[in-house]
């Protein structure tokens, strides 16, 4: 019995003690790294899990210390969707984010292209100004901007003061796109020029198709910026509930239901879900975008 088992062991090359410790160390390291990974994963996911579980609790249970719902109240989601205003907030958010994204992308592309590929005096200065604008808290210019939109153009109570400026380039998008366009070799542009393409044709027919991942990243970031924006709607739309967005409405939702954690968490899930859903379809664009803005160009 023991002899049979011993045989294959004898056939294997003898494992030197050094190699055995190395192997054991590799295994231990694998276990340590992956246990740490699981611990970190719990830290990052448990908040989502608890929020989701609470969103399915009954009113009274949400106020208790239980972690798991006794009965699964899917009707909470129905109540949230039926809350007056909730669907309007969705609509407004989609308008703000959708229109804003289209305008930002369309207006930022030519600027980014000029900054990446044209040689002109003041180019570095322009780029530095773009970066400075990107780093600037929106509160720095909000008082004159508010007075301009509200007192002079009478547009408070709408989202237009947030959407219209997006037709004039967005600093972050310009910077991200510029970083991306820098990676496109100049040979392609020269070839297009030799073939008789003007600047606009080169941009539209040669550069844009190659820059698709960069444009996707910019569009996503801009869409989520508007989706997540709280300060802008608070300044311009707060006086008119018909113009509230999800982020702004969600906070007031908590105010109106301030003991109903279950409904509030259901609303929270409904605001988070689209972002996470979109992420799963566009992971690469996101990660690429973050890397491009973070790493040297």
């Amino acid at each position, binding site marked *: 019995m023991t002899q049979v088992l011993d045989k294959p062991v004898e056939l294997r090359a003898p494992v030197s003690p050094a190699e055995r410790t190395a192997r054991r160390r590799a295994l231990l390291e694998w276990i340590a*790294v992956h246990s740490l990974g699981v611990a*970190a*994963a719990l*830290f*990052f996911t448990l*908040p989502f899990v*608890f*929020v989701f579980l609470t969103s399915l609790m009954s009113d009274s249970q949400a106020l208790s*210390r239980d*972690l798991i719902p006794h009965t699964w109240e899917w009707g909470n989601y129905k109540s949230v969707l039926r809350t007056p205003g909730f669907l309007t907030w969705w609509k407004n958010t989609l308008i703000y984010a959708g229109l804003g994204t289209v305008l930002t992308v369309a*207006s*930022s592309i*030519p*600027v980014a292209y*000029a900054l990446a590929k*044209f040689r002109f005096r003041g180019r*570095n200065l*322009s780029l530095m100004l773009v970066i*400075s604008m990107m780093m*600037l*808290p929106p*509160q*720095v*210019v909000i*008082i004159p*901007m*508010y*007075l301009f939109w509200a007192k002079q153009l009478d547009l408070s109570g709408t989202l237009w003061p947030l959407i219209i*400026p997006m*037709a*004039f380039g967005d600093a972050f998008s*310009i910077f991200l796109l510029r970083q991306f366009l*820098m990676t496109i070799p100049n040979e392609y542009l020269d070839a297009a020029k030799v073939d008789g393409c003007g600047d606009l044709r080169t941009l539209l027919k040669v550069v844009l198709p190659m820059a698709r991942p960069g444009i996707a990243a910019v569009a996503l970031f801009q869409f*989520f910026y508007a989706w*997540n924006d*709280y*300060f802008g709607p608070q*300044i311009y739309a707060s006086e008119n509930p018909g113009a509230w967005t*999800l982020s702004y409405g*969600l*906070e*007031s939702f*908590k*105010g109106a239901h*301030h003991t109903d*954690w279950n409904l*509030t*968490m259901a609303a*929270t899930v409904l*605001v*988070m879900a689209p*972002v*996470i859903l979109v992420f799963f379809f566009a992971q690469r664009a*996101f990660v690429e975008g*973050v*890397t491009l803005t*973070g*790493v*040297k*160009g």
Partner: protein
Amino acid sequence: MSTVTLASRHRRSALRTLAFMSPWLIGFAVFFAYPLVSTVYFSFMHYDGFKPPTWSGGKNWAYVFEHYPLFWPALRNTLWLVLVMVTLRVVFGLGIGLLITKIKTGTGVFRTLFYLPYLAPPVAATMAFAFLLNPGTGPVNSILEKAGIPAPGWFNDPAWSKPALTLLALWGIGDLMVIFMAALLDVPAEQYEAAELDGASVWQRFRYVTLPNISPIVMFAVVTGVIQTMQYYTQPLIAGKVASGVIQGAGTQFEPGYPDKSTLTLPQLVYNLGFQRFDYGSACVVALVLFALSMGFTGLLMRRRGGLVQAGD
């Protein structure tokens, strides 16, 4: 057609640049330069939005620095957040970045899970944390108490509200993780091999190979973290509002910085002065303080050569 002079070609290329740059040039003038100049102008005016603005000299400045009870607490909070929150975010982000490069099984799943919180809308994420860390019925304190650990008051305790915000900021570390991950994967493998041959320990390899290679990215993370902290607005505001149980539109005036001014940040003061007290002049003073601080750090970010953001090509 054949006699295209140099001058006209120059003019054409200048026009072309101007045309391509025009969206931003207009945007810069109308939505940045003009309001910035106006902010300076209003900071010397008394203006409540109804009566025409009148010259008030340095009164707004004196008011903000000497009599406005919220300015110094807000500045102190900002310094606290810069020191503690930014430092912890960079250290934790680097740690998670290192961890994700070491994970060999299920890398994609782990990376996605670590990244997701970064995407959660700030209002939703803050409300989720206000619930999770709710001292009465929140799951975190339930678990802590079951484990026999004294549970803090989090967003309801002035001593714990900023640590609670820090926890929220650490949860959304996804952006830094990606940046550090990219930098760590760029470190040349030969350098690690050489260090190993020289018998360097794990710590020595990190200290003498990893850190020098990624130091520009660490610096980038620190400076952008500080700039983000200058803009920190939504999370502390929502946390304070939810924790204090204020009901919007019910006539209750929200005490900014609940509890006890501990979650005040400078951007909140612009809102408080301008849109709650209708003292546009003083709001502009705070806005200019914010401008000076942010520009200082942005200058730092762009001064560093050969790393961070490269202006030239």
